[in-house]
């Protein structure tokens, strides 16, 4: 009898892969020109300074080169990308007012249900604009601001936005940060006042429905002194035969003794170029925790950065990347130690199968001022077949002697010894292998809120079947 090789199934994408009509949507023409940037600014009723900022960013974009490292992005042609698509609705704070097809999309993704059951506030972006934003009354009463970026930009928080917008990720950072500065649209603004601790998370969900479009949402979060916030971000898109682009930007300001946990489950479709930039800066005694699951995209460049500016500040990054057929996911993290007694910890897992390519890339920089800095990096990669690829590229740049830095990495397949051990304890082989792969992903899933851990398990769906291959 022919033996069946042990298989790990691809991620089941059926719950994400549905498309809605764009009838009645405003769609700017493809490409990137000064006229297009001016038109976006006009459509969004930008204040003067933002219009100037966009045009300056466009100038920078034109001067910068695409990266000469990382996965190939030659299939991405900005002249084919529509940088702004506005759905035919205004933002609402009531689900009933959201158009049926868009509402159904978010219903199918489980967003309203999650809001009812376990979230303090929700923002839902569809293509380039937010269509729904709501925050629970008891959260509003604490002084927490959770609103869309456009409202923040023209309302009473304009100065706060102006003081922080793209100060952490300047348009000069790299070409796609400049692109973001020129055409950004949508995203969330969060302000948590001093001492306010939110027990339940806020969540933004980004859905890109339009074919050949880009999504450039901007998330700006300011957590004041002694405050505490958990923010969750989710994203998905249906698959098209043309390239889509996501070049979002996340800027996180974590005040003195404040704590911010930022969780992301990224599940873009496999025609997506995900060139996202995320950065946090921590003041004295502050703490940033990144939880990151990267499952989707055709190509990803994603390295959340933590700048530990204040003394005693701390950063953690826990991530998992699953690269399947047609995917080249280049993910990791950056840590910059500036303050004294700072500490950072990176713990990542990656899985490659069906010809997928996963690359773990990181940097830990310890500046001369960062006395008594401690940093630890741990990355593990699992190869599930011999047609896939997995690389690790971790760098450390240490500029003081008063530091303790540790790093370890491991690449391999499912250990025969571990399978044998489990089998010797009475577990059959397919269950043993399933257990090992589940255990491999466990350090990340246990850090996620329950409903997201369930989603992640749905995403991975590590089905082990048959006998030995």
């Amino acid at each position: 009898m022919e033996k069946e090789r042990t298989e790990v199934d691809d991620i089941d994408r059926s719950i994400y892969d549905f498309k809605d009509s764009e009838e009645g949507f405003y769609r700017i023409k493809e490409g990137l020109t000064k006229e297009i940037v001016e038109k976006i600014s006009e459509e969004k009723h930008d204040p003067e300074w933002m219009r100037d900022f966009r045009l300056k960013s466009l100038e920078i974009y034109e001067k910068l080169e695409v990266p000469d490292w990382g996965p190939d992005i030659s299939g991405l042609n900005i002249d084919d990308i529509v940088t702004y698509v506005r759905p035919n609705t205004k933002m609402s704070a009531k689900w009933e007012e959201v158009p049926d097809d868009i509402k159904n999309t978010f219903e199918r993704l489980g967003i309203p249900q999650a809001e009812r059951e376990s979230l303090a506030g929700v923002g839902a972006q569809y293509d380039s604009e937010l269509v729904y934003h709501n925050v629970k009354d008891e959260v509003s009463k604490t002084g927490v601001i959770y609103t869309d970026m456009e409202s923040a930009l023209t309302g009473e928080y304009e100065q706060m936005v102006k003081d922080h917008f793209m100060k952490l990720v300047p348009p000069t950072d790299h070409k796609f940060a400049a692109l973001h500065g020129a055409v950004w649209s949508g995203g969330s603004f969060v302000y948590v006042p001093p001492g306010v601790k939110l027990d339940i998370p806020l969540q933004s969900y980004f859905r890109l429905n339009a074919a050949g479009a880009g999504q450039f949402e901007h998330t700006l979060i300011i957590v004041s002194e002694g405050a505490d916030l958990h923010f969750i971000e989710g994203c998905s898109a249906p698959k098209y035969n043309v390239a889509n682009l996501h070049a979002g930007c996340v800027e996180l300001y974590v005040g003195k003794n404040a704590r911010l946990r930022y969780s992301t489950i990224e599940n873009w479709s496999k025609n997506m170029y995900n060139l996202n930039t995320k950065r946090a800066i921590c003041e004295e005694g502050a703490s940033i925790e990144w939880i990151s699951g990267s499952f989707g995209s055709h190509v990803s460049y994603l390295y959340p950065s933590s700048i530990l500016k204040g003394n005693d500040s701390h950063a953690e990054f826990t991530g998992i990347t699953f690269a399947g057929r047609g995917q080249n996911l280049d993910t990791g993290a950056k840590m910059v130690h500036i303050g004294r007694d700072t500490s950072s910890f990176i713990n990542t897992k990656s899985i490659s199968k069906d010809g997928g390519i996963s690359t773990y890339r990181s940097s830990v920089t310890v500046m001369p001022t960062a006395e008594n800095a401690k940093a630890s990096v741990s990355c593990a990669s699992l190869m599930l077949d011999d047609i896939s690829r997995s690389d690790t590229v971790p760098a450390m740049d240490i500029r003081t002697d008063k530091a303790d830095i540790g790093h370890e990495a491991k690449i391999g397949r499912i250990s025969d010894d571990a399978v044998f051990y489990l089998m010797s304890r009475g577990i059959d082989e397919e269950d043993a292998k399933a257990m090992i792969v589940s255990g491999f992903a466990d350090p990340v899933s246990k850090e996620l809120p329950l409903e997201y851990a369930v989603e992640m398990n749905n995403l991975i769906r590590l089905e082990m079947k048959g006998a030995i291959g």
Partner: protein
Amino acid sequence: MESRQLQLKINPLPTLTWNFLKLNSAVIDETVTLNGRGKSTIQNIPRGVIVSSGSCEECGGCDISAIQDIRQMKTGLGAEADAFFEEVTDDMLHIRSKKNMQISEPLCISYEFADGDANAVRQEIIAEEDSRLTVIMDYTAGRKNGGFFGVQTRVKACRNSVVRLIKINLLGDSFLHFDGIAALVEEGAKVELLQMELGGGRNYTGTDIDLAGYKSEFAGNAAFLCLGDQMLDMNYYIGHRGKKSLSTLGVKGALRDRAVKNFRGTIDLKHGAKGAKGNEQEETLLLSDGVQNKTLPLILCDEDDVEGSHGATIGRLSQEMLFYMQTRGFTEHEAQVLMAKGQLNFVRDLIGDEKSVGRIQHYTEGVFGDDR
């Protein structure tokens, strides 16, 4: 005598990463006046080893295919540095161990330099089938001397042979030094590389190992000590092509004062290298505020039935260790010197040649003696 403006990209990574790290390669922009000075001495030639210089065709003793293999090897210094060696020196030292000869006595080659000497040399080492060969090279100059010394060493370890290559850098603190190494390792063969990087002002070492054969093996161990304004830039590339090939790389050392060290170490587990295992470990002791250490250990993996791992520990002497040693009567400085020597001894003790060990001992005592 000819002055050359060297503008080279040296020690390139096999795959690029962020440019801001400045680790994708090192850039050389210096004027070098090659004068061919410097004395080389071969102390004795063990029985079973053939040493010749000049063009290989004159010797006529080698298998032509082995020579062709060796000529095509790229060192870890990269294509631009390899082209530089081709251009500046025709002189080639050929070293060969005869088939089935198990040679326990090492072949020792010493290069001695005075202030202002500038020279580039090349060696080709072929260990024929089932032979065993040890080659020790040391490069010596006065501590305060300056100059240039470039050395390129290519090794072919034929089937079931063992090559031990030992390199000891005791150059002066103002020397610019290139050390390019390439090795092709056939079925069942092993290349063992021991490096003591102690001297030299600006040191660039690049090693490229091709584990081509079934059960081929590489064991690399390097120790370094960088003090004052010394700079050491290291690049290791270990390509696993052979099934069940095995590699280990251990790098240990200490940095003090304003010293700078860059380490790049790549284990490339290529498609088809089933059962291959690669491991690299780096340990750097930081002894002063002004030091700078960059470490980039890569694993590239295109095969599932393999194991790749790396680890790095970078930091100061642990407070617990320091306290323990202070309770035993050591000052903090003495404890640091003791630990730095410990890092070096890990490689020194593997050399197995008393004269070489004595030279290293003499050099390190001199360096640490200056602290008293």
